[in-house]
């Protein structure tokens, strides 16, 4: 277990080199981008100097690592704010979105998979697997646009974009809006926040949901055919106990792998979803950083997302060990 955790250090160092180099290699002059197309050459030269853009690679990398070690993620060129404080609202928005997307994917996906395996070759099984197949092959942006068109624009059931009603903005405390509105005791706004979550959560959660459903089904089928299940069944346990108590535990290990991978992939999918639904999350933050050539924001944003990804994988690996005592690190 300690070895598994120690492995993090070289991974994290490697990440800083990669993120820093990518930025270094992107062509174009950030000073120009910051000042816009109508800026004078003097102003551009002045800003370049000020930002230290004329220093060599290792000097810039060295000072970057030095800052990181003291917990300084730098200052955004676009806003002049400390990134470490500025990024929190975005991170919270993304975490809220991906948490519910994952919850949606796991609850619907695992249950659909279990029931499909349980009732193999039934109508429900076929229907589920058809939906899963469509779900896997559906591009996120297309699903998102269709949802907006049908449920927001045509039917008017749910809001099109954003995290809260622009006419009654939510005042953030933790920036997790559901928690914030509950803390303030404003339950109308809690409902508003949930309503804003529905469409993006479905858009973002559908692909992992479909993958989890398929994985659960095949894993479950395999387990249901094994000897120990037959033994349990022979003891006369009800089908529900057999499936949910005895089979699920063993069937869940491969599912957990998929859940872990999908949780990471969600961060990628979140950029598209956040763009289409104007969800002010970390994907959008990095995207804006890129379009403004905001070097520190791009670097720190990618680094934070990559770090989260690494930790999700760590948690998944540690969960394996706790579910299946045969796995050791």
């Amino acid at each position, binding site marked *: 277990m300690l070895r598994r955790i120690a492995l993090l250090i070289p991974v994290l160092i490697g990440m800083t080199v990669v993120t820093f180099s990518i930025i270094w290699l992107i062509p174009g002059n950030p000073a120009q*981008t910051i*000042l816009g197309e109508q800026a004078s050459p003097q102003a551009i030269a002045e800003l370049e100097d000020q930002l230290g853009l004329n220093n060599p690679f290792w000097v810039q990398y060295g000072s970057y690592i030095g800052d990181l070690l003291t917990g300084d993620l730098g200052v955004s060129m676009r806003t002049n704010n400390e990134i470490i404080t500025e990024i929190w609202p975005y991170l919270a928005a993304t975490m809220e979105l991906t948490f519910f997307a994952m919850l949606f994917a796991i609850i619907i996906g695992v249950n659909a998979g279990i029931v499909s395996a349980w009732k193999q070759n039934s109508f429900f099984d076929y229907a589920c697997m058809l939906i899963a197949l469509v779900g896997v092959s559906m591009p996120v942006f297309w699903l998102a646009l269709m949802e907006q068109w049908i449920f927001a624009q045509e*039917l008017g059931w749910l809001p099109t974009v954003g995290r809260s009603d*622009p006419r009654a903005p939510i005042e953030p405390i933790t920036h997790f809006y559901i928690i914030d509105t509950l803390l303030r005791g404003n339950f109308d706004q809690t409902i508003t926040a949930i309503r804003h979550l529905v469409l993006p959560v479905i858009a973002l959660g559908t692909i992992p949901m479909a993958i989890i459903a398929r994985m659960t089904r095949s894993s479950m089928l395999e387990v249901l055919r094994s000897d120990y299940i037959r033994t349990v069944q022979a003891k006369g346990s009800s*089908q529900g106990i057999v499936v949910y108590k005895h089979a699920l535990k063993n069937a869940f290990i491969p599912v957990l792998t998929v859940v872990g991978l999908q949780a990471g992939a969600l961060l990628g999918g979140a950029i598209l979803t956040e763009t289409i639904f104007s969800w002010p999350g970390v994907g959008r933050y990095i995207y804006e950083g890129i379009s403004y050539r905001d070097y520190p924001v791009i670097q720190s944003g990618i680094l934070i997302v990559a770090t989260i990804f690494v930790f999700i994988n760590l948690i998944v690996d540690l969960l394996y060990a706790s579910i299946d005592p045969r796995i050791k690190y």
Partner: protein
Amino acid sequence: MKKVKMNLISVSCLSLLLLAACGGDEDTASDGNTDTNDNGNGTEQTDGGVLIFARGGDSQGLDPGAVTDGESSRVTKQIYETLIEFEQDSFELKEGLATNWEPSEDGLSYVFTLREGVTFHDGTPFNAEAVKVNFERWADPDHEFAFRDEGYTYSVYGTLFGVGEEDVIEEINVVSDYEVEFVLNEPLGAFLQNVAASYFGIISPAALEEYGTDIDENPVGTGPFKFESWQRDSSIVLKKNEDYWEEGLPYLDGVTFSVIGDNSARLSSLMSGDIDLMDGLSPDDIAQVEGADGFEIFERVPNNIGYLGFNTEVEPFDDPLVRKAFNHAIDKEGVIAAVYGGQATPAKNAIPEDYLGHNDDIEDYEYDLDLAKELLAEAGLEDGFEFDLWTMPVARPYMPNPMRAAELIQAELSELNITANIVEKEWAVYLEEIELGYHDVFMLGWSGVNGDADYFLGTILHTDGIPGSNQTFYSNEEVDALLDQAKRTVDPDERANFYEEAQVLIHEDAPMVPLVHSIPVLAGSDIISGYVPHPSTSESLKHVSLTNQ
């Protein structure tokens, strides 16, 4: 167990339905807290309500002098005011924070009489000292409020008045509490137009002192709306300034600027009533808005030029005959129909049509392929040639779909045996490399900020702009002389004459194909009244109200 699963599914379905049902009354609640009274012409004028204005991107900052993007000035325009203001729908000047101003005989000094009884949002009085502090802050890099070390730059001030020793404003003197004198090094024809640009909004000196470098997130001005809160990439909330100096204004209780990046999502939000007004409607979507009940289209006056520029230093574009041939070979009306959805007028000069000095007598090169062929033959290029056509990678107001425009031009030139290879580069690289002259022919445009011809001609076609803003590398001494004279003349009629003459020469030299002056389009709900889009893209919303019909 079966029950458990069914419960799960039905609970999910039920909660979805419930959530959908909860939405029903939200729309009606939106403006419900407003007093209505009949304004006499059948509609009800609503005092108050909050206008939700959605745009594609967020503001960079809210310090008006330190920003260059339209998304920032659109917001600062509500919070800050300038000494002189533009008329609602044009660049004509009218009173702002100053009620009177006159140039001295020699054009070297202006005394502004300031409006009395105006207070900043923080309660401190607006006076001559405040004007002096603001202008000196932009001009002097060592000023205590310049914040240069924290990355503040005042780019537009530099462009319009000059940087350092080139700064045309020599000194600013406080004559009395409500009189301030600007002393110039040399006359500047566009001085008053410049002062009226939204970038020169006056900030409370007390707020500069209090917030320091955080001033761009804590704006304090004299405008009709006060800053309330800002969530980056989401929304900026402004509230009515109850102590606004203009009696009875503003009508609205507040304005919220929302960011909705995706064009179609923004339109969906408008259609579903989540927002009231949206900027940047795609030309393709105009028909959809016009076909729907309860919505209307707002058009801005064109205040830009979209053009095809030649690198006049490389072959064969160093030959005016070739440049003229291109001018004859491009069907502007066709481009407007295909790319702009008709929302543009064909351009023949580099400045918009209603500008002082726009030369309407110039006859555009007509669309005539035979004539183009003749000119090419005369240049010895009847067999055609190949070149790189640099195409913008991003849509701009003056060029909503650059790739489609480039393909049209490519197709037309192919009829003259000319092969245009479309080159697309990343936006920052594109701007950088055309400044360095790596291109043959490029697409670009320019939008006005102060309604003055100098901002166009003096920037993109004067020799002083090489290297930099003059990317055609066009250099003509006579033109330079005329532009310089126009710049230093204060009398409007004389200035107009200089510009008109310069345009004749530029037209003859043809360093560019002026394509269009585009008409940016907004869409909004028809409960909005009193909204007048300004050509600068930043308008005050103090006259806007929401009505229930």
